[in-house]
Structures are given as structure tokens and as C-alpha cells.
């Protein structure tokens, strides 16, 4: 057996993030607790730097597909690889890296509060992001499951990181238990699929299923269990119960991470497993996904209607948005168009939602209770944050001037209309329901403030940068949507 050549260029970005995580930990250990506010920004700065360094080699991978960790068995056709970096992977890496940088910057609001150890926070964040990068490149079930756990384990710790906060601890435990169960279910499904097809590589599973396997019933059960396991990760109804409590209990930055990066990792797992691996069984899982999508968006939107707590509202809205992302799976089955639509929605949702969380983090410094009425007059009090949140809400609702949010819905409708018109109609109704609560929140922003006066917020620089990043991205892509959507939707074409 010869030694394998490793394509270091392909594995560089996750490696850089892992090394960055270690660096943050070491620096934090030697520097001790930060003595000034400026010193407290060091871990976040290191995290952002790691992200930038990781993004460098990633950009150069766009032109050709890179494969590594391959198994060659001459009698069984072409080599199967565990780690593949293609354009699909890179688009997702873009989402993860952008999200990680924004979350690291959001973490700096905790500086003033002083109860969250920022060194550990950034270490865990980078660890989790390493897993998120890996999962997008994983092309076998083992790598995929392990990477998914690498995403989740640090996330539990991040959720409960705030010292002396019982809500955070409770949120963390709840999140942990749900996640462990979902992993167990998924492992069961994965092992059944392996048993039925004799391989863990997605391409070989696909080939085996397409050729017809003896134990097809086993493969079907395995598929359904895998779907259920991943449905927990993406918080699809009825596997969503952990979301609101966890988001509310966790620090806002962590909630943002869970709703964007961690959830995106779940979706990418779903895309890879279902489309690349189990594409031949689309007849089985597509109807399941369609029902899940319809349930998820309806429950998410309807329950969001009653929320008065901003983060809880965002939590339910993020459940609803997960439903929209699932629509193309349910509608188009195993076609590549479905993945394109879901990727497009996910990419847009990522920075729009991060923008909303970023402003929520600012308001949370003044109003920890996060009632919607606490946002009254924000546009007048703190125009930068106010307009950014207004834009994010309008884009989440899918209306101009958030053109990009509108196009996200266009993309999903495009995938669904025709193959599953009923699902598209359900989604249309949901878009209208969703408006009610976004509009309610929006109205608060523009109401005259209770007390006229100068800005009452002390916006930390890091968060200001995060808001600026998400807002600028939203506006630029609203004016030139092709810049984002053409590469993302062209991923598979």
C-alpha cells in the first residue's frame, strides 16, 4: 500500500481555522483575563484574521475541483474521495466564513458585560467553524457524521458559556440532549444505508441504489432515519422544540451562529446525503421533505405571530425560513435545480439574518429583556442600527427594498412551481403570514421614541463592523443580485 498524496490546498481552509483555534486558546491562556476593553478584543481579532487567512486559499480553488483522501479500487470503477472541494463546497465555505467572522464580531458585545469568557468563546467558535467547513467537503457518511458532531459539540459549550446564567445552562442542556438523540437516530440510519449498499461513499451508495439493491426496504428505512436526524439539526417541525428556548437562553451571538452557520451545516449535510447519496430514492424522501417543509414554515410563522420577545421571534422566524429552504427538496426531488435553489436561499438568508441578530445584540446591551417595544424609535435613536434592522426585516419578509430577500423567494418558487404547485401555494400563504410579525416589529422601529434625545446606545466597534458588513452586503446584492445569485445558482450548471 502506498502513501496517499494529500491535496494540501484543498484542506488548507479547515486546517487554518483549526490552527487559529489553537492560537486563540494559547494566547488567551498566556495573556490571562483581559485588563482593558481593547485587550478584550484580541480573541475576536484573531478569529477574524484566521477567517481571512482561510479565505485566501479557498478563493483560489474556484476554477477546478480538488479531491483528496481517495480510495482507489480498480475493479469497482473510479476512485471515491472523502474530501472534495468543488464550487458547491466553496459557496458554502463562503457562507460559513462570512458567518463566523460576523459572529466573532458580535461576540464583542459581551466585553462590557464581562460574564462571557471571550477567549473560550472564540476558540469554540473556530472549532465549530472547522467542522462546518469540513462537512461541506465531506463525501462519505463517516466524515459527514463526524464533521456534523464537530460543528455541534462546541456549540453546546458556547450556548452555556455565560457564567452564572441558569437560562443559558438550561438552554445548553436542552440543545445537547436533542442533538445527541438526533445524532443517534442519524447514525442508525447511516448504518442501515451502509448495510444495504455496502459503502459509505456517497457516490458508491448512489451507484448501488441506482443499480438496485436486494435489501431495498432497509435502505428506505435508513433514508428516513437519516432524514429525521438531519431534520433535528435544521430544526424542521416537528423536531424544532429546542430552538426557541435555546436561542433565547444563549448569548445573542451564539443564537446568530446557531441560526446561520450551524443550521447551514445541517442543510449542507441534508443536500449531500439526499441528493448525492440517496438520489435514487428521491421518490421516498421527496414527499417526506415536502410535508416537513409545509409543516415547518406554517408552524414557524404562525407561532412567530404571538411573540413579543425579539430573539424568540427571530427563533420562530428562523424555523419558518428553514421551511422555505426545504421546499426545493420536497418539490424537485433529486434534481440539481433543487440544491441550487436551497443554496441560493441559504446564502441570502445567512447575511440577512445575521444582520438582524447583530442589531438585536446591540439593543440587548441596553434592554436585556428584548421586548419588541424596546425597539421603539430605534431609527431615530440609533440610525445606523435602526436602518440596518429595518432593511434586514424587510429582506426577511421578502419585500423591496430588500430585493435580495424577494429574489430568494423567487428562487424557491421557481424550483417548486410546477413539480409541487401545492407546496408553492402553501409557501405563498406563509409569506403573507410572515409579513404580519415583521411589519409589527418594523412599525416599532419607526415609531417616535418615548424620550427624544441623543443616541442611547454605546455600539461596540466590533458590532458596528458586523452590522456594516451585513448591511452593505444586503444593499449591494439588492442592487446587483446577479453578483451573488449567478455564481451560487450556477454551482451545479
Amino acid at each position: 500500500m502506498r502513501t496517499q498524496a494529500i491535496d494540501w490546498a484543498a484542506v488548507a481552509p479547515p486546517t487554518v481555522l483549526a490552527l487559529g483555534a489553537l492560537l486563540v486558546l494559547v494566547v488567551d491562556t498566556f495573556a490571562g483575563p483581559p485588563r482593558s476593553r481593547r485587550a478584550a478584543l484580541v480573541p475576536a481579532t484573531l478569529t477574524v484574521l484566521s477567517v481571512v487567512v482561510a479565505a485566501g486559499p479557498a478563493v483560489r480553488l474556484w476554477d477546478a475541483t480538488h479531491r483528496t483522501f481517495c480510495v482507489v479500487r480498480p475493479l469497482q470503477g473510479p476512485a471515491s474521495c472523502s474530501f472534495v472541494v468543488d464550487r458547491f463546497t466553496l459557496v458554502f465555505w463562503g457562507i460559513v466564513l462570512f458567518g463566523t467572522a460576523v459572529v466573532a464580531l458580535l461576540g464583542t458585545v459581551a466585553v462590557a458585560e464581562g460574564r462571557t469568557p471571550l477567549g473560550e468563546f472564540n476558540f469554540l467558535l473556530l472549532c465549530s467553524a472547522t467542522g462546518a467547513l469540513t462537512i461541506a467537503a465531506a463525501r462519505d457518511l463517516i466524515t459527514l457524521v463526524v464533521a456534523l458532531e464537530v460543528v455541534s459539540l462546541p456549540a453546546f459549550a458556547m450556548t452555556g458559556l455565560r457564567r452564572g446564567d441558569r437560562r443559558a445552562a438550561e438552554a445548553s442542556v436542552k440543545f445537547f440532549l436533542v442533538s445527541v438523540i438526533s445524532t443517534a437516530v442519524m447514525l442508525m440510519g447511516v448504518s442501515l444505508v451502509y448495510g444495504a449498499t455496502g459503502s459509505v461513499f456517497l457516490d458508491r451508495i448512489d451507484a448501488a441504489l441506482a443499480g438496485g439493491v436486494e435489501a431495498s426496504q432497509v435502505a428506505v428505512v435508513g433514508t428516513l432515519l437519516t432524514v429525521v436526524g438531519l431534520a433535528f439539526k435544521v430544526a424542521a417541525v416537528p423536531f424544532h422544540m429546542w430552538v426557541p428556548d435555546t436561542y433565547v437562553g444563549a448569548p445573542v451571538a451564539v443564537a446568530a451562529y446557531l441560526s446561520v452557520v450551524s443550521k447551514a451545516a445541517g442543510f449542507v449535510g441534508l443536500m449531500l446525503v439526499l441528493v448525492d447519496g440517496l438520489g435514487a430514492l428521491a421518490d421516498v424522501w421527496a414527499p417526506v421533505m415536502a410535508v416537513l417543509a409545509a409543516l415547518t414554515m406554517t408552524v414557524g410563522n404562525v407561532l412567530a405571530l404571538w411573540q413579543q420577545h425579539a430573539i424568540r421571534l427571530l427563533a420562530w422566524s428562523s424555523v419558518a425560513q428553514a421551511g422555505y429552504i426545504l421546499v426545493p427538496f420536497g418539490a424537485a426531488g433529486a434534481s440539481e435545480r433543487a440544491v441550487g435553489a436551497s443554496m441560493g436561499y441559504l446564502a441570502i438568508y445567512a447575511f440577512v439574518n445575521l444582520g438582524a441578530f447583530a442589531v438585536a445584540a446591540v439593543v440587548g446591551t441596553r434592554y436585556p429583556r428584548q421586548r419588541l417595544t424596546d425597539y421603539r424609535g430605534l431609527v431615530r435613536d440609533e440610525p445606523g442600527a435602526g436602518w440596518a434592522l429595518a432593511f434586514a426585516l424587510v429582506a426577511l419578509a421578502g419585500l423591496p427594498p430588500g430585493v435580495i430577500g424577494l429574489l430568494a423567494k423567487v428562487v424557491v418558487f421557481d424550483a417548486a412551481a410546477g413539480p409541487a404547485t401545492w407546496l408553492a401555494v402553501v409557501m405563498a400563504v406563509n409569506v403573507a403570514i410572515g409579513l404580519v410579525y415583521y411589519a409589527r416589529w418594523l412599525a416599532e422601529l419607526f415609531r417616535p421614541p418615548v424620550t427624544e434625545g441623543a443616541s442611547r446606545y454605546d455600539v461596540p466597534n466590533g458590532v458596528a463592523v458586523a452590522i456594516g458588513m451585513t448591511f452593505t452586503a444586503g444593499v449591494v446584492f439588492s442592487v446587483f443580485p446577479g453578483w451573488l445569485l449567478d455564481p451560487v445558482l450556477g454551482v451545479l450548471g
Partner: protein
Amino acid sequence: MSAWLLNGLVALPFAFAVLTRLLARRETAAVVVAVLGGLVTLAWSVAAVLAPGPDVDLPWIAQLGVRWHLGLDGISGPLVLMSTLVVALCVVSLVRHDLGFGARSDLAALLLLIEAGVLGSFLALDMVLFFAFFEVALIPMWFVINGWGDRHDEAGRRRAATRFLVFTVLGSALMLVGFMIVRSQTGTFDIVQIAASYRPTGVAGVTAALLVGLGLAVKTPLWPLHIWLPDAHSKAPTVGSVVLAAVLLKLGTYGFVRFWMPVTDPGWRLLAPFVAGLAVVGIVYAALACLAQTDLKRLIAYSSVGHMGFVVLAVATFTVGGVQGAVFASVAHGLITGLLFFLAGAIKDRYGTGDLARLTVLYGKVPRLAGLFAFGAMASLGLPGLAGFWGEMLAIRSAVYPSAGLPAPTYTVLAVIAAFGVILTSAYFLALMRGMLQGTPAAVRPVNEDVRSVELATREVAPGTAEAGALRRDVDVLEWLTWTPLVALTLLLGVAPGLLLVPISVAAKAFFGGLS
């Protein structure tokens, strides 16, 4: 040159809106800029209509096949001119208006934003682009109702605003689903190509036509989907009602002509007659509802439902005459109902109420205002010689001679009922004029010789004071300036309908290949 004219028509109001907002600290300057924006856009639209040129057609989102396709023809041209005129007049009317609360300049900026979205929708020849512009106007309109609406009823105006938003978005989302199905059938979003070559068939074709029609029916609105409209109109500020009625509803009727007709086959036995039937029910229902209204703005709002019924009836005949009737009636409704809402707002400003039980003898107090209202009401009920007549006449005429594939007897019955609706319309407008302008015998019976003794305001006002003077304040210069163009055009189109009908018929024949 033409590309500049078309893109400018969308970009100008947007740019002026941003500029107005940036100047918000200096209220007067901001309002002046907004007025300038309204007038410049009006002039620009005249130039664009007078200098026809090729379409703008550029790729916008290549992967989705969405194109930046703008064009202007005889179908969209009249609506564009009417919209720019009405918005310009609305902004001009804000020069003096004391709203009591909320910044005038912000309201003006929102009106210009709405204008940008509306003009984009009229110009768009790509289905997704139409949808996107269609939605542009919604958030600003929501702000207008929510922020500047009925100041006595905050909960009510919020409910009205949100209901307007939710209904409209539901409609447009369904319409978008329909567009996507059409795309999956034809492979293009370009409505010009679709109108020229698409022959809708099968379940997918019917579903698409149903969804597009349903979405537009909410916007237009078609009975029974009109329930958002009376609230939105009555709670909105005057300029909001004017823009909503005159301009925003036209997105629905224009959508029916431009985007629903090409994806619908008149040969289907059920769909077109069904739509025509709903339109006629709407005409009669609206007229009956008007007879029962006690609030002036709600009454005018319901009368809009009736007028939109005529437009949709005309569309559902699938004839050139129908298209002429639909576009002409849309423009006429914009001018006349715009004027009526301006007048209703003026009355409400003076007397603090729109309650018809309290408003009487306006001829005696504000004769010019009352005279203008009588003119508007006459135009609205379809008096020959004024603009309102031709649209309704053409709608009924084309219903008598519908397209070949349609069941002629059904349409004849519908035409007769619609004509009956015209009579009912006359009935409620005459009742309104009698009650509000002339006053009932009981009200006029002189308690003493001074008509002012028939108190109109919500509270007692001592005669001779400044406030009593306000109650008798007749049309002032700014109001003349704002309303005269509407009156003049109503007259002009009444005596010379060919000004519009000829270009509309030319454009309709060019756009729809096989229309007779």
C-alpha cells in the same frame, strides 16, 4: 436615448425620494425638492411617451433568466402619464397641507418611492421584474397608512395598513407562483414573447392562469377579495387614498391586461366567464354597498370596487375593444376617483368628519368645493361627455360582442346586469349629492335664516370666529392648482376619447397576436 428615458422614469422618482429624505431636517427645502421631483418625473414621462423608442432589454439575473426588460406602448403609456400626473399633484398638495403630525417631507418621499415602483411595474415586460416592482410600492404605502393615517384611530389604521400589506403580498406571491409555472411551460419570463407565441394548455396552463388571476384579483380588487380596500382607503391620509385608488389599483388592472390575458385561453369554457361573472357581481355589490355607506371615504372606496368590476369585465371579453375599455376606464377612474378623494379629504379637513349624517348643505357653505364634488360624482357615475362614460360604455359593448371562443349568451346577460349596475351607481351618487350637497328638507328647514345654524362640525363653533371661518373656507389657490388638471383631463377625455383609444388599439393589436 430611449434607454435613458425608460430607466430614468424609474430612477428619477427614486433619486428624488432619497434626496428628499436626506434633506428631512430642512422641511421646506425637502418639500420643494419633492415637488420638483414630482414635476420632473411628470415632464419626463411626457417626453418618454412622445418619443417612442426600442425597449431596454438587458440580462439582470442570468441564472434565473430574469431580464431588465422595460418598454412603453399604448397600453402602458396612458397609465404612466396618469400616474405621474396624480403623484405630482399629490406632492404639490403637500406644500400647504397641515397634517397635524408626521413630517410632510417624509410623506412626500414615500409617495415618490411608490411612484418609482408603480412606473417600474407599468414599464416591466419581464414577469419577475413586474413582480419585483409591484412589491416596491407596498412597504412605502404601508408606512403612509400606518404613519399618516386617521389620527383618531391608531389601532384602526395599523390594522388597515397591515391588512393591506398582507392581502397584497398574498396576492402577489400567488401571482409569482403562477408566473413560475408559465416559465416552466414556455422557458421564458418575457411577456412579449409569451403573448406572441404561448398557447396555454393542460392542467399547468389552467393552474397558472388561475394563480395569476387570483393574485391580480386581490390587487385590483375583484369581489370578493376587496375586503382590504375600504379600510385601507378610509384610514389612509388624503394623498394616500388618492394614490391608492388612482395609481395602485391600476397595477391590478394593468396586470390583468398585460400579464393575465396572454397566459389565459379564452377558449376555456369556464375561467373567463367566471372572472367576468365575479366582476359583474362586484359592480352590483359595490353599488348596493355604496347605498348603505355612512362614511364619505368608504363610499368612494366602494365605488372604486364597482369601477374595477367594469375594467375586469372588459378584460374578460378578450377583444381589442375590451382592452380599450379596460385601459381607458383605468385612466378615467384614476383621474375621477383621484379628484373625488382629494375633495373628500378637503371636506374632512374642514369639518373634521366624513360622516354623511353630519355633512349637509355644502352648496350653501362651500359652493365651489361642492360644485367640484358634484362634477366628480357626475363623472364617476358615467355621464356622457365626461371621461367616466367611455370606459363603462366600451366594457358593456365588448361584453355584448365577446371573443369568438366565449359563450356569447352568458356575456350578454352579464352586460345587461352591468348596465343595471350603472343605474344603481347613478342612484347612490345622486342620493349622496342630495344628502351631502343639498341637504335633506329636515336639515334645511330654517331654524333661523342662517344656514350655518345647521352645524356641520363635530363640536359647537361660535359664529364669527376663525374656526367658523374655516368651515366656510372654499377652494383656495393651491387646491385649484391641484384639482384643475384632473377636471380638465376628465373633460378632455370625455369629449375626445380617441386620444387614448387609438393608441391603445394599435398597441393591443401589436401585443396580442390574434386579438380581434
